[in-house]
């Protein structure tokens, strides 16, 4: 871990007072940090970051096979025993996303897909119409669909009704590191969701990941915040702790915010 020991004592056995297993797509997970793989300078750095993150699910993109490529992200995930979650990154239409998901199912032997249909290259914001269309088609085709969406409570509800296994609202645009720009909407999504809510995109640093969990999200998905950090392994460890801490804080029940002080010591005798 780059020579720095971080031990908050939160890794194991922390009693959060809740059944702390993430039930997703009919499977159970201990880690609530889902990792992306984009942006890592090398497979070695990626492998170390994944190790430090403690993740059990990691997403990969599908692209044309390059015969000259050496090493594979799949080998890394296999070595680590991490579940592979193919995504449809780079798709602009429902048709492209459906074909990509089917190719991923064939190549990776999983019916899970992180559905990502973007609207334009500049913002990479998800296209809600194409995403919903693709989600309906993929659910009908037997996929476990995890759609990446804007922080839109109405769309989240519609995707849940369409049979998606989770909803994945953004905190801010992909790779922006702007954190959670509309915490209120994330709370609204959490309040009405009957499927796991996974905060996806926008995380910049550990406090953003902790906030996502404090708002009630079930998990966090991030890539750039770790892979493009100056020390990816150390940031991965920070994110692991942040997700655990945020989850515990949510379960613990925070004190209300007050306008004025409330003394924490008994009054002095007069």
């Amino acid at each position: 871990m780059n020579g720095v020991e971080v031990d908050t004592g939160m890794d194991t056995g922390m009693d959060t007072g809740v059944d702390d297993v993430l039930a997703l797509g009919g499977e159970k997970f201990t880690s609530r940090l889902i990792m992306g793989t984009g942006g890592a300078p090398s497979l070695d750095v990626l492998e170390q970051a994944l190790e430090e993150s403690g993740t059990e699910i990691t997403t990969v993109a599908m692209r044309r096979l390059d015969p000259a490529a050496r090493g594979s992200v799949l080998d890394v995930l296999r070595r680590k025993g991490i579940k592979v979650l193919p995504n449809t990154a780079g798709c602009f239409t429902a048709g492209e996303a459906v074909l990509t998901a089917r190719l991923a199912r064939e190549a990776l032997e999983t019916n899970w897909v992180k559905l990502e249909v973007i609207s334009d290259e500049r913002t990479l914001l998800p296209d809600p119409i194409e995403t919903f269309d693709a989600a309906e088609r993929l659910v009908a085709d037997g996929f476990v669909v995890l759609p990446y969406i804007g922080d839109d409570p109405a769309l989240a509800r519609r995707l849940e009704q369409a049979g998606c296994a989770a909803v994945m609202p953004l905190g801010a645009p992909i790779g922006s590191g702007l954190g959670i720009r509309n915490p209120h909407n994330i709370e609204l999504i959490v309040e009405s969701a009957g499927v796991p809510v996974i905060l996806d995109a926008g995380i910049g640093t550990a406090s953003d990941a902790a906030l996502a969990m404090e708002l009630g999200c079930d998990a966090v998905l991030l890539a750039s915040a770790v892979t493009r950090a100056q020390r990816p392994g150390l940031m991965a460890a920070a994110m692991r702790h942040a997700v655990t801490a945020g989850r515990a804080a949510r379960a613990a029940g925070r004190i209300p915010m007050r306008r004025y002080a409330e003394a924490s010591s008994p009054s002095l005798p007069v």
Partner: protein
Amino acid sequence: MKVTINGGAVELPGEATVGEAVRALTSMTSGVAVAVNGEVVSRSAWESTRLSESDLVEVLTAVQGG
């Protein structure tokens, strides 16, 4: 027979199968999927599916991203 594999023109013997097209590109067998003219060809059908002149073959695998 001329087909396009991942955007490049490739000359294959007549009656070539999807399996032969994949082997023209890579020796990888796992972690790979193929679409011909926008339709997925499952691995079990690679050796029995014959290509036609001008077919568009896409051979994909997982990479870092997303």
